[in-house]
């Protein structure tokens, strides 16, 4: 019966199909018995295999598919469960397409998305926290460090594929702004279900799909059990140290509540165990405006490369932070952040600084003992409306800090120094974007900032009391408006505005009598800037193009001997992003810029920056010309857990004024002088990481190369020099069984200093670091970690130091843990290293915290 019916339909269709010109009509039947096949999928593809049209056969096996206009060389594919797939070239000769399918099994590929370690959906990559977390991990930051593609710096700053993130969201809300160190260090990973990376994230909805971002954002997705609950955890610890007279102590309490309307994070922490709390209050997304006040005086000892800061940080630190976000019914956000820090730190170090000069090296030996004290109070209020057609953000913030430091030095020039630096600022930023009638954008931005910085340095070397006072105050205002036109996939914006900068500098050097030394100065360096900028952004399928052409007209007003003047600056830049494949992109950027000189360097007087260094500045104004080129490549295959990032850049700078270094008696003078001074910088960064699912781990490698070439006038002679740095760091981590996990990292660093006509100087550092965690039963977690530092300099002096730590945790219940730890078991007392500066080398030895024993209790509610 079916056979007969089928034949009848064939005949009927043979007639009807003649009239169909842009569509194909056909029948699907069983080859064995000619019975119609219903619900078969009919696919029309072009020669590239691209699906152009499709249909589904009805109960009588019929189908009708409208064909595209360009219908040459098409193929037809028919699929149906229980039948072999049918495939043939499609002929369009007004004939009825009769497809007879052979019965046959096609095994369908079965899948199960195991554990979902990493998932991707368009521009969102989702990491499942539980599949990366290990027993010894506490905070979400500990787990983020294990996720391929994500880098967490020691201070908590997060990068994705080598680029800083631009937002840190918790359940879609930006509670902490750039100060997300509190979240990474304190939020328990047990409260987070997943970490989402939102690639190419444009935080302002009004610009989505129009203005492109190469930065990603992170969003923490809470577990449902942790939402809308008050989460509290805290810890208390006590112990003793072999090298400290006082008892070791540490305590913290953290509370968090995340609901749809309200978010809150409060924390109060204190310790003297070497944990630097100020990192938690750094605003990682803060971008310095071009004319920020910078201090002149610095008694800071340089950070010790590679060594974890807590190894040599003798501190007594407290922080309190309170962050609140309230969302109104319409999604408008009010945010308030208040932070307080009280940080006291002491450093003991010995250094030998060698200045390489033609007439013979100058060597200075210093044994420094410093105690610094910083108090800071910051407050910030933000109101934000982020809608599809309207964006408003007003941020009012104030930052008050008092930095004091006392340092006693013995060695070549024994002395004691003391510095007091109160620093106050208040600023307000308003940004308003309105989308009008769908294709026009109006933006208004207003930024106003007042800042005051006072520095008082006093030095006593036994025979002489001398010092420096520097007072700076500034007011910066920037008002600009822009109009954007959306033309299809194109955004054209015209930006224009005015900014003004008023800056006063008062210097007073006392106690030093040297010829030709100007010690007192009162100077104002002000400017008025009128600017216009046109920006063109265009996106078409796999290509994004941005062309920016800012024009700035500066009118400078100087109170000193420098004449008032006007400058026009043009700085065109072009950026192209090619989406080579869905997960592979290449970005190329280039720009040419004439930059204004730094007002910081313009002064007649000599400013003492520490007991033996002077900054002399420049007594004229000029600009510098520069060009830069960069390329970056990014590839990810989240399903296979593979992340690849490579970036390279090269830049040239031609400032009219080059740097000058003069050593006169025991003092070093840094100044600027008009002489040709070309500098060239090159940088290459490669980062590859891959999950190792078979052992629930990851493997990766990071490579950094940088080269800086410059020229300096040293002791009246032009000296060419170059600094090169190379670092290679592979790492691997994983689980051997459910009761044993491990990680290992190796780091090789090579630094080179080449000075014209002098032999090359270099140093090599090899660092091996690893940790092993043993979990014999759910009650006990035992971690032992070690770091072997192996440093070598040109004289082949080998220095080895091995640091060993161990920690035993009793997981008494889900809410209580007791931990006993011993750090620096081998009681190593000092760390030595060699580093290079512009035309100098310094060999330092820094005092380490010795063997320390601690017992701590962790409680979570």
């Amino acid at each position: 019966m079916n056979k007969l019916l089928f034949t009848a339909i064939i005949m009927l269709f043979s007639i009807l199909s003649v009239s169909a010109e842009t569509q194909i009509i056909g029948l699907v039947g069983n080859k064995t018995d000619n019975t119609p096949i219903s619900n078969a999928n009919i696919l029309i593809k072009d020669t590239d295999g691209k699906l152009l049209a499709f249909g589904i056969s009805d109960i009588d096996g019929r189908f009708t598919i409208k064909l595209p206009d360009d219908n040459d060389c098409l193929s037809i594919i028919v699929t149906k469960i229980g039948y072999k797939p049918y495939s043939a070239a499609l002929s369009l000769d007004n004939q009825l397409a009769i497809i007879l399918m052979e019965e046959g099994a096609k095994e369908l590929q079965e899948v199960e998305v195991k554990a979902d370690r990493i998932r991707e959906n368009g521009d969102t990559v989702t990491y499942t926290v539980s599949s990366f977390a290990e027993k010894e991990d506490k905070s979400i930051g500990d787990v983020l460090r294990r996720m391929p593609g994500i880098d967490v710096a020691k201070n908590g700053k997060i990068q994705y594929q080598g680029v800083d993130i631009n937002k840190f969201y918790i359940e879609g809300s930006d509670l902490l702004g750039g100060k997300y160190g509190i979240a990474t260090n304190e939020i328990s990973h047990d409260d987070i279900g997943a970490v989402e990376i939102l690639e190419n994230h444009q935080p302002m909805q009004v610009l989505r799909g129009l203005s492109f971002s190469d930065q990603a954002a992170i969003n923490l997705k809470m577990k449902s059990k942790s939402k809308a609950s008050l989460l509290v955890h805290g810890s208390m610890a006590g112990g003793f140290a072999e090298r400290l007279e006082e008892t070791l102590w540490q305590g913290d309490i953290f509370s968090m509540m995340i609901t749809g309307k309200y978010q809150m994070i409060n924390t109060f922490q204190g310790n003297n165990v070497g944990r630097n709390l100020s990192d938690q209050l750094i605003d990682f997304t803060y971008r310095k405006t071009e004319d920020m006040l910078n201090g002149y005086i610095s008694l800071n000892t340089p950070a010790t490369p590679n060594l974890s800061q807590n190894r040599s940080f003798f501190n007594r630190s407290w922080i309190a932070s309170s962050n609140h976000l309230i969302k109104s019914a319409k999604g408008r956000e009010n945010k308030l952040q208040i932070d307080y820090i009280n940080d006291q730190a002491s450093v003991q170090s010995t250094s030998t600084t060698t200045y390489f000069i033609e007439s013979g090296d100058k060597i200075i030996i210093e044994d420094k003992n410093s105690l610094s004290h910083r108090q800071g109070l910051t407050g910030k209020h933000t109101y934000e409306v982020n809608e599809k057609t309207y964006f408003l953000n007003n941020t009012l913030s104030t930052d008050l800090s008092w930095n004091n430091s006392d340092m006693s030095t013995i060695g070549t020039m024994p002395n004691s120094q003391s510095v007091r630096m109160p620093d106050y600022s208040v600023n307000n930023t308003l940004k308003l974007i309105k989308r009008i009638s769908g294709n026009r954008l109006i933006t208004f931005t207003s930024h106003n900032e007042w800042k005051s910085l006072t520095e008082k340095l006093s030095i006593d070397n036994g025979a002489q009391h001398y010092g420096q006072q520097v007072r700076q105050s500034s007011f910066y205002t920037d008002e600009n408006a822009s109009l954007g036109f959306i033309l299809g996939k194109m955004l054209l914006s015209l930006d224009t505005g005015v900014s003004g900068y008023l800056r006063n500098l008062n210097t007073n050097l006392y106690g030093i009598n040297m010829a030709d030394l100007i010690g007192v100065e009162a100077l104002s360096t002000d400017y008025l800037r009128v600017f216009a900028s046109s920006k063109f952004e265009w996106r078409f399928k796999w290509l994004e193009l941005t062309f920016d052409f800012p024009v700035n007209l500066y009118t400078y007003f100087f109170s000193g001997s420098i004449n008032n003047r006007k400058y026009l600056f043009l700085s065109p830049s072009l950026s192209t992003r090619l989406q080579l494949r869905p997960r592979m992109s290449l970005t190329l950027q280039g720009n040419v810029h004439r930059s204004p000189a730094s007002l910081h360097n313009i002064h007649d007087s000599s400013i003492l920056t520490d007991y033996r260094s002077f900054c002399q500045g420049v007594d004229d104004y000029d600009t510098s010309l520069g060009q830069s080129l960069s390329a970056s490549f990014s590839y990810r295959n989240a399903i296979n857990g593979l992340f690849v990032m490579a970036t390279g850049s090269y830049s040239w700078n031609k400032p009219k004024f080059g740097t000058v270094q003069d050593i006169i008696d025991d003092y070093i003078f840094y100044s600027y002088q008009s002489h040709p001074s070309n500098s060239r910088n090159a940088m290459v960064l490669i980062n590859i990481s891959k999950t190792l699912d078979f052992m629930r781990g990851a493997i990766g490698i990071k490579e950094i190369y940088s080269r800086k070439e410059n020229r300096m006038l040293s002791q009246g002679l032009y000296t060419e020099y170059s600094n090169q740095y190379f670092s290679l760091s592979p790492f691997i981590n994983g689980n051997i069984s459910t009761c044993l996990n491990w990680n290992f990292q190796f780091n090789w660093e090579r630094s080179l200093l080449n000075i014209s006509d002098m032999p090359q100087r270099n140093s090599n550092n090899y660092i091996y670091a690893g940790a092993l965690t043993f979990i014999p039963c759910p009650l006990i977690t035992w971690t032992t970690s070690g770091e072997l530092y192996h440093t070598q300099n040109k004289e082949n002096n080998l220095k080895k130091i091995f640091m060993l730590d161990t920690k035993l945790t009793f997981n008494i219940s889900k809410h209580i843990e007791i931990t006993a730890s011993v750090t620096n078991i081998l009681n190593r007392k000092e760390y030595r290293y060699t580093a290079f500066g512009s035309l100098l080398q310094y060999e330092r030895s820094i005092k380490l915290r010795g063997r320390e024993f601690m017992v701590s209790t962790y409680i979570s509610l």
Partner: protein
Amino acid sequence: MNKHIILLVLLLIKVSNAVGQGSSVSYRAVYDFDYAIRTEETQRNDCLFLDINKNGSLCYSYYTFESDSLWSTPDGDKVFRTLLTNAISTEGARTNAFPHKRSKFTVSKCYEQKEALVKESIDSDIYEYTVPMYDIIWTIMDSTDVICGYPCIKATGEYHGRRWEVWFTTEIPFSDGPWQLSGLPGLIVRAQDSDHLFCFKLTGFSRAQSKVDWRGQGEKTTRVDFLRRKKKALINSNAMTNAMLGTNTISTSKKEYVFLEADF
């Protein structure tokens, strides 16, 4: 005797052929389903099973099925109480680690009739109505991707007031998908609405015994009538709770309820 053996062998060959041809084979697609109940609230999560055979499919919530199965057993209430007590003691009062209903719909699609029978409960009352299949006009996009190991093609379409962006694979030749979505030449493995309120993601696909619809016949209604009734019940849920418990709480929330369909 020999004749019998030959007949038996032929019969076995016939049976094994039938199995090999896949005619009686059924598959289960498992979807992770993120959904919103009200605007501006965090999404909830469900696990949907789509049991498919050559004639049609049944889409249902695993958790709802688990809960219904438990309550249909003679000592279901006792077992439920034990599981609830255990969950509260280990995870606290906000736990949801005990059997409870999530999505309350089942969608039975019949390929030949091109019709889907939708059953959904409001409180304990079951309602049912039919909707036509293949009602969505899909636009095939240029984007391709590999999802869960299957090469996929992107398509967009509008269905009852929501714009859906979906990825489907021709590797699994069932013109089907989660919930009421279907009509593409392959299984829909991922679907997201343009307001980001609902999202279906395939997490597994394997051979499995199809479940039969365990719910009894519901009260017949139409799609629009049912959705209006459901909306009304949700809006009045606070008043109903007050009436049942004798309380007098006032809901101040201005958040709107959202539904998979937005055109009623």
